[in-house]
């Protein structure tokens, strides 16, 4: 019943979370106040506020690691006792908040100069800072209710960052983005509702005495939650907005988008998995508590639930695999640097999901998977941020992002090239780069999962093995496209027709170098001293997670990295990657004209991409809708006019036919009839009457008598 005690841990009050949310708001206010008239005020307020936030978050993290979770009562949306939005920070949240604020700091530093050639700068800074508040908010809460609050805010605020340049491309991308955001948000809140019904609370720690819905609802809750977060995480097949949105945004923004925002999705999935991980324990306790069924029933239920979570884990693993593989494939065939980076982000998210999937699959022993995931999250934040900022510098200096039109930049912008290469080391997972560490951890995690499956003779063992193979192949592909991009952008001699306007390219200004340099340093540091982060950050963060086996956490914290066994693992992917690169780039390497099918120029038909079908579906439904309206309108008109005509007809009938016939004086009508009758009778009868006067007199008398008999009988 670890969960039970966990849920009862005493929280200590702290102002830091609120401060972390407040500072960016102040910065935003300052930026807005500065405006176009006092740009320096604006930029400095952005830099200072993000820096301050970074400081605050660091102290927050140290405190959380020191003395456990802290809370700050935020009086928002208090609907009775059950729903209220309050800040509460545990190690994992603080951990995410940390690298988020690092990236924001770097981005704002970089944006200091980068935004010079953009328009509507004030709006950019304003919304960048607001988005930081929202994003940090997501990390600093402990229940889905509050999380949804900040999550939605973040999604909608980021819209302004995506659409910033307001070119047609940006608008299209932003439309796609907002659509996906709305859908994701809806499926998210749907999932939260079901989770509420499932766990009896919106907190990440399910209530012990919670009303459990039956299986289908639980599964639906899981799917909806993961889909909701997955949209942000760029999870295949919900990734379609990502490769459009990231390049469309200004470089600092895209650094943030792919450095942090998609991690928010990963964070959400992590939280989901953890919450469902804790469920069995809670359910067991509930089973004991409930007088209804005995302990063994509870145990059965618990096992059943564990199995569920394992299946969930496998599902996530494979989602991760699909994501990383598809992202890799698409990244290979791009020519736009930022687009390539965007697809690479998709693929890297695949790694992270992969780790979380291992966590789910291993259940209580999943420390390794989670550690790998977290570590890779940091790493990806660093090198991808560095990539984007460097790409921003390239764009800023060379006004060009098509790698085939660039080349030989290493002479003109050496520092940028250096940072780029460091980041490349990181992402490729070469030792000394940070990627190596996290990929090693992930690989261990999948191996552990495989051992578990083998040991328990699970039917899913084969799938796990296959996942591992896919993992290695994808790593190879990653190496391939990174090499390609680096080679074409920086080292290849530019084509003569493009060489002309690469003449004047100079090194990027200091502010931008500072931004990317900061991150490059991070890459190297993490790569060189993995133990530091593992013991100081990842280990403790994982350790605070309830329901995880402490022994495995310990093991994670002291995993040896630089072993031959691990380094050996690199060679296979390296071989694959270089092979792919050689296959695609040999003409340029050998300096011959490229002919025939070209791997790097290869374009898949549109109908293979999911978004083609999404758009088709959306357009189709809209067309259907309007068709329905067009057809419905005349029908309605017809009915209405029919009714009206009917009414008119009735009125006419009444006025022209019934009314006269009613008001024609019956008296006169009767009289006319009677008179005719009388006239005829007279003409006919008069002669005869003259003959039979006497008889008629008698007859008349008789008639009169018979007429009056009735009354007389009564009267007497």
């Amino acid at each position: 019943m670890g969960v039970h005690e966990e849920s009862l841990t005493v929280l200590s009050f702290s102002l830091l979370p609120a401060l972390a949310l407040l500072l960016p708001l102040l910065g935003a206010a300052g930026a807005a106040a500065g405006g176009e008239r006092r740009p320096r005020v604006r930029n400095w307020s952005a830099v200072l506020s993000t820096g301050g936030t970074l400081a605050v978050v660091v102290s927050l993290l140290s405190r959380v690691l020191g003395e456990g979770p802290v809370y700050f009562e935020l009086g928002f949306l208090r609907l009775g006792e059950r729903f209220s939005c309050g800040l509460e920070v545990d190690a994992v949240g603080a951990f995410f908040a940390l690298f988020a604020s690092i990236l924001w700091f770097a981005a704002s530093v970089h944006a200091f100069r980068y935004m010079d050639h953009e328009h509507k700068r004030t709006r950019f800074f304003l919304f960048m800072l607001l988005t930081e508040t929202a994003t940090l908010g997501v990390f600093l809460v402990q229940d889905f209710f509050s999380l949804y609050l900040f999550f939605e805010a973040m999604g909608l605020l980021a819209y302004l960052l995506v659409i910033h340049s307001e070119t047609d491309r940006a608008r299209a991308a932003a439309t796609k983005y907002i659509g996906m955001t709305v859908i994701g948000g809806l499926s998210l809140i749907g999932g939260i509702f079901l989770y509420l019904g499932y766990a009896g609370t919106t907190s990440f720690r399910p209530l012990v005495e919670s009303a459990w819905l039956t299986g289908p609802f639980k599964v639906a809750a899981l799917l909806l939650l993961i889909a909701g977060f997955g949209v942000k995480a760029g999870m295949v097949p919900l990734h379609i907005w990502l490769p459009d949105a990231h390049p469309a945004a200004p470089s600092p923004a895209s650094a943030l988008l792919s450095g942090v925002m998609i991690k928010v999705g990963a964070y959400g999935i992590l939280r989901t998995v953890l919450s469902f991980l804790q469920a069995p324990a809670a359910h067991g306790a509930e089973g004991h508590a409930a007088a209804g069924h005995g302990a063994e029933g509870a145990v059965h239920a618990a096992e059943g639930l564990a199995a569920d979570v394992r299946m969930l884990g496998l599902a996530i693993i494979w989602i991760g695999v699909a994501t990383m593989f598809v992202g890799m494939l698409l990244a290979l065939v791009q020519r736009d640097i930022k687009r390539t980076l965007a697809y690479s982000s998709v693929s890297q998210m695949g790694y992270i999901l992969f780790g979380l999937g291992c966590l789910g699959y291993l259940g209580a022993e999943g420390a390794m998977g989670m550690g790998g995931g977290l570590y890779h999250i940091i790493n990806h934040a660093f090198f991808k941020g560095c990539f984007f900022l460097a790409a921003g510098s390239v764009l800023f200096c060379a006004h060009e992002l098509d790698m085939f039109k660039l080349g030989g930049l290493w002479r003109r912008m050496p520092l940028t090239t250096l940072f780029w290469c460091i980041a490349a080391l990181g992402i490729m997972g070469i030792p000394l780069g940070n990627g190596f560490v996290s990929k090693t951890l992930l690989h261990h995690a999948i191996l552990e999962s495989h051992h578990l499956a083998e040991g328990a003779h699970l039917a899913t063992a084969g799938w796990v093995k296959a996942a591992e193979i896919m993992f290695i192949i994808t790593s190879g592909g990653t190496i391939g496209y990174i090499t390609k991009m680096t080679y074409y952008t920086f080292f290849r001699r530019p084509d003569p027709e493009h060489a002309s306007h690469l003449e004047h390219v100079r090194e990027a200004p200091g502010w931008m170098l500072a931004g990317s340099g900061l991150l490059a340093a991070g890459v190297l540091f993490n790569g060189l001293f993995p133990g530091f982060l593992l013991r100081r950050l990842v280990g403790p963060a994982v350790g605070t997670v309830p329901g995880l086996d402490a022994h495995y956490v310990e093991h994670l914290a002291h995993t040896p990295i630089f072993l031959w066994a691990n380094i050996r693992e690199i060679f296979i992917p390296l071989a694959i990657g270089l092979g792919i690169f050689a296959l695609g780039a040999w003409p340029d390497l050998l300096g011959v004209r490229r002919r025939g099918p070209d791997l790097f120029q290869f374009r898949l038909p549109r109908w293979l991409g999911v978004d083609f079908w999404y758009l088709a579906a959306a357009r189709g439904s809209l067309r259907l809708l309007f068709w329905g309206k067009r057809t419905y309108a005349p029908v309605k008109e017809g009915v209405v006019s029919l009714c009206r005509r009917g009414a008119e007809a009735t009125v006419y009938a009444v006025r022209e036919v019934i009314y006269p016939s009613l008001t024609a004086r019956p008296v006169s009508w009767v009289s006319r009839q009677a008179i005719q009758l009388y006239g005829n009778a007279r003409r006919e009868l008069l002669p005869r009457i003259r003959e039979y006067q006497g008889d008629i007199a008698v007859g008349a008398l008789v008639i009169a008598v018979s007429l009056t008999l009735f009354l007389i009988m009564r009267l007497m």
Partner: protein
Amino acid sequence: MRLLHNYHYAAAMVLFCVGLYTVIVRRNIIKKLIGLNIMETSVFFFFVSLGYLDGGIAPIHAGAADPARMVNPIPQALILTGIVVAVSVTALALSMVILLYRQYGTLDVDRLMREEEPEAAEGGKEE
């Protein structure tokens, strides 16, 4: 032979029918009025005959008249009122007949009523 005893009722009925027939059938409004009067008369006759007593005497309580042989005075009293009413109605109606004849130049009820309906035209408007 009760019928012979009550022949006056029968006569009243016959008169009433005759009056009604006249009112309904005749197109000349004056004849209609006459029919009305016939009806009224029949009703009066009926009333008076209610109080009639064979060999009855006027109900004057003077001298030693036998109350049992007096006719019932109430109907007669009522009928006096009724006659007054009837007369006044007839008078009014006749005056109207005169007016109508002046303005429409006819006494034929159909021709009268076949004139333009009042609500359609400004007929009611004073000239």
